């Protein structure tokens, strides 16, 4: 998981620094007056940042929506996240080696053990299943959609991979 360093700039606003997997260092500064600034550090000199863009509040929101894939979702994405307050909806693709393959939702005690709730099951063979019951089987290559808080989602993913709570 990418690490995001957050720090307060007193009198200016907030600063978020992320080092991406591709080796880029990006800094987002959110000014108290609503402006956002995007900075990039050159790879040779990690002391000097370069301003990429300054965005007004409205522009920043649109930019975030674009980057966040709300307008156009990349097809390759395995797990897409949408956030409502604390609740998130996530898509999980069940790989053949996952421990849960072949088991039913009821057997795994998903809701009791993770707190998350499965709201859809998409299986290539059996098609879409909205709000599947406890007897629905999780097959390899299927996609499950679950709703829950971040912690619950994490536990849910554990259950899928290990095949038990």
């Amino acid at each position, binding site marked *: 998981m990418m690490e995001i360093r957050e*720090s*307060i*700039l*007193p*009198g*200016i606003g907030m*600063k978020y*620094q992320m080092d991406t997997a591709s080796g880029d260092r990006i*800094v987002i*500064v959110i*000014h108290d007056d609503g402006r956002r*600034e995007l*900075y990039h*550090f050159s790879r040779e000199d*990690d*002391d*000097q*940042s370069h*301003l990429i863009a300054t965005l007004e509040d409205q522009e920043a929101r649109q930019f975030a929506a674009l980057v966040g894939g709300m307008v156009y979702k990349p097809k390759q994405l395995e797990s897409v996240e949408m956030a409502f307050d604390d609740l998130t909806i996530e898509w999980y693709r069940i790989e053949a080696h996952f421990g849960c393959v072949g088991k039913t939702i009821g057997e795994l005690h998903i809701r009791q053990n993770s707190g998350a709730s499965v709201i859809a099951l998409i299986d290539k063979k059996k098609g879409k299943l909205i709000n599947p019951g406890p007897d629905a089987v999780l097959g390899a290559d299927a996609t499950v959609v679950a709703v829950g808080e971040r912690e619950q989602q994490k536990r849910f993913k554990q259950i899928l991979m290990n095949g038990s709570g």
Partner: protein
Amino acid sequence: MIFEIGLALGLIALGGLISAKLRFSVIPFYILIGMAVGPHATELWHFDFRFIDSAPFIDFMGRIGVLFLLFYLGLEFSVGRLVKSGKSIVVGGSIYIGINFTLGLLLGFLGGFPVAEALVIAGITTISSSAIVAKVLVDLKRTANPETEMILGITMFEDIFLAVYISILSGFVLSDSNSLGGVLLSALVSLGFMLAIIILGRKAVPLLNKWLRIRSNELFGLVIFGALFLIAGFSETIHVAEAIGALLVGLVLAETEHAKRIEHLIMPFRDFFGAVFFFSFGLSIDPMSLGGNAVWLALAAVVITFAGNFSAGMLAGRTANLSPKASANIGLTILSRGEFSIILANLGKDGGLMDILQPFSAIYVLILAILGPILTKQSPHVYAFMNRLFKFKDRRVPKEEAL
């Protein structure tokens, strides 16, 4: 009278406009404009640039400006933030204060000043202008740099130092008594008053939260202003500088849930009355009287401030594991002086200290408020130059080891 005030405000606005055109900090321009006019100036047609009738009133508006400046300083400040900012900032801030305060005191004593004057001089040369520093960082697009947290941390640290220092110093300078015991007593009274307000204020936060839930902006403003002026005025009656009273009100209100709303309310007043304060400070200085000792003292102070800030920046940067180049940016950015130096000089005036303090601080602030941002902008060149002189080594721990 109104016409004279109008003329003064017009001049202040003009100074502001000129500084905006030249892209400099506004503070030196307000002071310069104030110095340009005054009793030594002439009357042109209907325009009386001597400001004889209105001087007391302008002075009073400036006094209110100090209250707002310190009230805002208190509001912005929070202990939680400092604790969260981490050890390296506390270390860096202590290094900075240690070096620069000692140098300031040395300058005062070597200049042959009595203790009170030396303490004021040390204060003037130690405290950076947080307003100029933050503005320069934003203007130069350096907010994302690795050294920025350290720079802002040090200025925050300086602000706390200033709060404590002003309260002790005002007890020292404003006390009526001449004996050491009397002076200590008044310094204790002012510290005790400060602690009492802070402790009471902390306890009263839930109550204040409830009381301040006032929907009408007009009433909300009146309540805040009333509290500010009442407490500041009351402090004055027990020989605690009114500025401290204002600072304390700010500190207490900073802990309430209404802090942001108060900030928004106060900001225009702070800017307006603050500008008048710098103008009135300039007005109180006769440019013809400048020269001689004040100039030499100010130049000496500029030199030691540069040396002190640069070396403190290099040391603080090293403790925070920053490269020499980033560390050089720290010292060169916190070089700017402004509002707080003037407030301290003003405190000296209120306490009836030697007259030289004012022209000294005016020249000193004028130089560093203009030179500071320029050096900040040119920091890569300054660093290259200093590097040739001193050959800084990059003593950062390599990243792999740090992990």
